[in-house]
């Protein structure tokens, strides 16, 4: 389990996020939603050990502050919003960097085939020999996802809880690939991994998330299942525009529609 208690982050004298409580268990997909600038990425950076924070974060029971880089890397993998490269790596070389920590629980014999398998999962079969810099933004994002997958995939298949931190994993993808990636994240959770994803699409969130954490102005505005969290009043207030929540008849999943009057 990944657990955060009273986490605050200040940059200079400005408090970016205040007293956020959060948890994700193995088997869960937790979505973080909220307007631009509400502190979602900052919070994820604190969880990744990238930003100094006040409060307490534990990963599988261990205090994050006491973990070395490689220890944290063996428990969770992080997908950043975008990754620019200055050297001509091939797609396969990038994906294989996911295994560069050396403590990824991958058996020696399996290591060679893993990049291809990860690439297949993100619908990039046959891309291994292409140059990363020549791909489109959405393709690059999926290459990075394959890399991140390599880092924590093997232990999850062996039953050890591992986590994916995904910062806007689908924001540059077409709808087909949004669904492929969200299903991949769901599958990762179903096999005993935990996923934290920052998402902007509330409908995808309602469809795939077990739990939603709504952030607003650096604080947690609500947390719970999609049914509990997604209400007209709450999301209209948080996103500062008029939104209407309905329920899909068969599945009982909520959906969100903007009102034509807008603001």
């Amino acid at each position, binding site marked *: 389990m990944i657990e955060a208690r009273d986490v605050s982050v200040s940059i200079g004298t400005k408090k970016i996020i205040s007293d956020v409580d959060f948890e994700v268990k193995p088997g869960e997909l937790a979505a973080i939603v909220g307007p631009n600038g509400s502190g979602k990425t900052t919070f994820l*950076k604190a969880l*990744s*050990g*990238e930003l100094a924070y006040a409060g307490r974060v534990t990963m599988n029971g261990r205090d994050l502050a006491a973990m*070395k*880089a*490689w*220890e*944290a*890397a*063996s428990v969770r*993998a*992080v997908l*950043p919003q975008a*990754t*620019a*490269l*200055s*050297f*001509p*790596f*091939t*797609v*396969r*070389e*990038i994906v*294989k*960097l*996911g295994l*560069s*920590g*050396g*403590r990824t629980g991958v058996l020696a014999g399996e290591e*060679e085939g893993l*990049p*291809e398998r990860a690439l297949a999962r993100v619908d990039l079969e046959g891309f*291994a*020999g*292409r140059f990363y810099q020549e791909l489109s933004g959405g393709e690059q994002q999926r290459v990075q996802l394959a890399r991140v997958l390599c*880092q924590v995939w093997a232990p999850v298949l062996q039953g050890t809880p591992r986590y994916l931190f995904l910062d806007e994993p689908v924001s540059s993808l077409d709808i087909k690939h949004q669904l492929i990636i969200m299903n991949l994240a769901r599958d990762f959770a179903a096999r005993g991994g935990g996923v934290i994803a920052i998402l902007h699409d509330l409908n995808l969130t309602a469809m795939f998330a077990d739990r939603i954490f709504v952030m607003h102005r650096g604080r947690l505005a609500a947390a719970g299942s999609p049914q509990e969290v997604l209400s007209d009043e709450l999301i209209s207030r948080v996103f500062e525009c008029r939104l209407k929540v309905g329920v899909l008849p068969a599945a009982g999943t909520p959906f969100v529609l903007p009102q034509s009057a807008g603001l």
Partner: protein
Amino acid sequence: MALDSAAGLFGMRRSLAPEGDRSVRAKFAILVLAAFLAATVLFSLASGASDASAFAVVRDWLFPSFSATDALSLRDRVIVYDIRLPRVVMGVLIGAALAVSGAVMQGLFRNPLADPGLVGVSAGASLGAVSVIVLGATVLAPLTMVLGTFTLPLAAFAGGLATTLVLYRISTRQGRTSVATMLLAGIALAAMAMAFTGVLIFMADDRQLRDLTFWSLGSLAGATWQKIGAVAPIIIVALAAMPFLARGLNALALGEATANHLGIPVQRLKYVAIVAVAAAVGASVAVSGGIGFVGIVVPHLLRLLIGPDNRYLLPASALLGASMLLLADAVSRTIVAPAELPIGIVTATVGAPFFLWILLRRRGILDL
């Protein structure tokens, strides 16, 4: 590619490597480069004003018993072992040091244009070296007493280290290195170092001026076993540290935060890289003056050939850097024979247009 089919001939079949995996090709390239370096070394030992031949040298190594009768004359022996061999050893050490330093620095700054010569590290090292040459007998006398022959390379190392640290501090903010800032800060730092160097040269007496002129032209001509003894330990330790940086530098290509997420202790990696580069460049500058562009040309060519994976790029750079410097030295010795052209002129004549070519090919590079 020709390289792949050649690798196939030697049983390193391409089918062993999945698509996008250049490791087999890289390993084969390293073998070829090692053979090429061996040939270059022999060629350098054999060529020169005297007709002492490489063949005779090899025969002397293999069958020393023949020497007494017809192999090497005493004159040839002196030429090969006391003049050419130290020069070749020095060329190999410095060529390897400069090329690998360039590659490591490019990895560290995440930019293919970073080069110790371009961004002022060599100028800082020069300042350190000139300080010792000019002030070694007076102000810095206590230092010279303690450190002996190591004073010059260590001072150059200190100068290079100080410049690299300042440069990194200025051009990197929140883990991102701005290329434009890096190059401009490098120009400023080099100008500053050269100004101080100028003051020292102004203070120098006649004998020191002769030393300085000889040294600052950039040449392997002054190579002696004694000088090698002073710089080889520093260069070898620095070169030995660099392979351990390879995995970390690969991850660093994705950015500092991502390297850290992959489990790389980024802060430690950066400090080790900076110290190793400063040591290798400092020691090189101390004995051979400023030899430019090796650090930018060699890694760039190799990236085109085997890709940017530092696990292969660093050793390949060491081998090709050593060969290139020996060839440049051969040119510098023969092109205006019996006089000698400073080797720095040879490397700059080839390297500067090459650098411009990189800029033309990748104009977007400065916008990074």
